């Protein structure tokens, strides 16, 4: 009974804010498919703690989403999916090529090449337009970390976007890569 109320509440919240959260998730992962997976994973976690959430759940969902994205959630999720697909005898779907094609000539293409935490900071600061303090709160780090990650991220984007930088492939960063 309580579960169904929580689901209904979350559904009505998503009717209002789902699109916006998904847009952030798409930018955090670099593809539509990845974005939907990320949002879905965040919703599962938030739903498990629904009773403990007071007020607007958007902050919780966003924070969970950013934590997952910055902590290399995708790699873990991919492994999980491969195992479950193996059991059903179906092969894993390819990464979303639409994203790769649509990203041509775009800074978003270069965004994918940043380390995960830098990318998360850039999305928080320049897409969601959160302040440094808000970004730090969402990412669970200090304001100083946000500042340095944003500066490094922008510097790297500038380098990559310069002609002759040789940055042509929209390759995601290594799962083991960490913010320096």
């Amino acid at each position: 009974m309580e579960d169904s109320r929580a689901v209904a509440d979350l559904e009505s919240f998503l009717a209002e804010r789902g699109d916006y959260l998904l847009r952030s998730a798409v930018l955090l992962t670099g593809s539509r498919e990845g974005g939907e997976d990320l949002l879905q994973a965040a919703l599962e976690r938030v739903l498990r703690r629904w009773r403990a959430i007071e007020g607007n759940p958007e902050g919780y969902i966003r924070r969970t989403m950013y934590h997952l994205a910055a902590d290399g959630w995708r790699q873990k999720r991919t492994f999980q999916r491969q195992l479950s697909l193996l059991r059903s005898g179906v092969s894993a779907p390819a990464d979303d090529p639409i994203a790769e094609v649509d990203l041509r000539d775009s800074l978003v293409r270069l965004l994918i090449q940043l380390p995960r935490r830098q990318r998360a900071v850039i999305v928080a600061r320049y897409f969601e337009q959160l302040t440094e303090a808000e970004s730090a709160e969402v990412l669970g780090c200090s304001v100083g970390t946000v500042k340095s990650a944003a500066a490094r991220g922008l510097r790297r984007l500038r380098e990559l976007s310069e002609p002759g930088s040789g940055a042509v492939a929209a390759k995601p960063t290594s799962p083991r890569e960490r913010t320096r």
Partner: protein
Amino acid sequence: MSTELEQRLRTDMERFTRGVTAPSGLAQKAHRHNQRRRTKIRIATAAGSVTVLAAAAVTAAGVTDQFGAAPPARQTQTRATAYVLSRVERALAPANVDNLISYSRAVYPPGMALEPVPGGLAGPSGSRRADSLWAVGYLLHWAYGTSQRFSAYTASGQHVFDMGIAPVHGIPTQTAVIYLNRTWWTRADTQATGQPGQSGQGGCVPTRIRLDDGAGAGWPAFIRSQLSCGAYAVTGHQVVDGVDALKITDPGGQITLLVNPRTYLPMRLVIGPIEQDFQWLAPTVANLAPLKVSVPAGFGQVTPPNRPGTAGP
């Protein structure tokens, strides 16, 4: 937003995510996943078997977050297994694709005509253009290795012609059987149609796709190369036979190819008003049988027409 780079970044991010809408039922789906997870954990706790514990570990590996961490040793094992499996899967996929029979059915608009000619198929020319003998409603096509067969029918299902290309003593040989005038002809040393992408120019230009392009092996490489160099572009998704196919179009928007995102094999090809649906069949005896063209008793042999095949329909 002080610098130009930041402004551009913001604009690009807006543009890239414009039109992204959350599908309905996300909360319900999350609830179902959580229920399944709870059940798995309960089973694992109760049974205590190695297998079930491994399943729980898989679940735990996927849900590690700020609310709790999975045991590192188990995660490592899960990752190693998944890595090996993905490698095996990748290694097997190309071999499977190479060894499939391409079967397709192209539906033509009224007034369309096709004629088998040396080297392929062509639209009738001159006074033959109006000849209803060659009116085609749909065309079936099989391709496997160096063998191909076309069977043309009128919209009402009347057999118009069969045309096959197959090696005879190592020489590609074309055989056409015309049903409406009960004749047939054959011709050796035919210049058989090639793999997709070989029929047009090389390099990074939109290569023309012909409806009589060859068997499966060349398609994934052709599509990948055309996409990666930007000659064709992915323009969306479309569900074909329950598969969320990639929609690939040429710059002029005349050709649409719907491709299986896993195999890069085409599921549907649309060229103007002509629509062609593909199936990819295992090379069993039964599936290979239609590749052979046989001449029915009583049909008279004639000389092949002079006009060479120009292009696909």
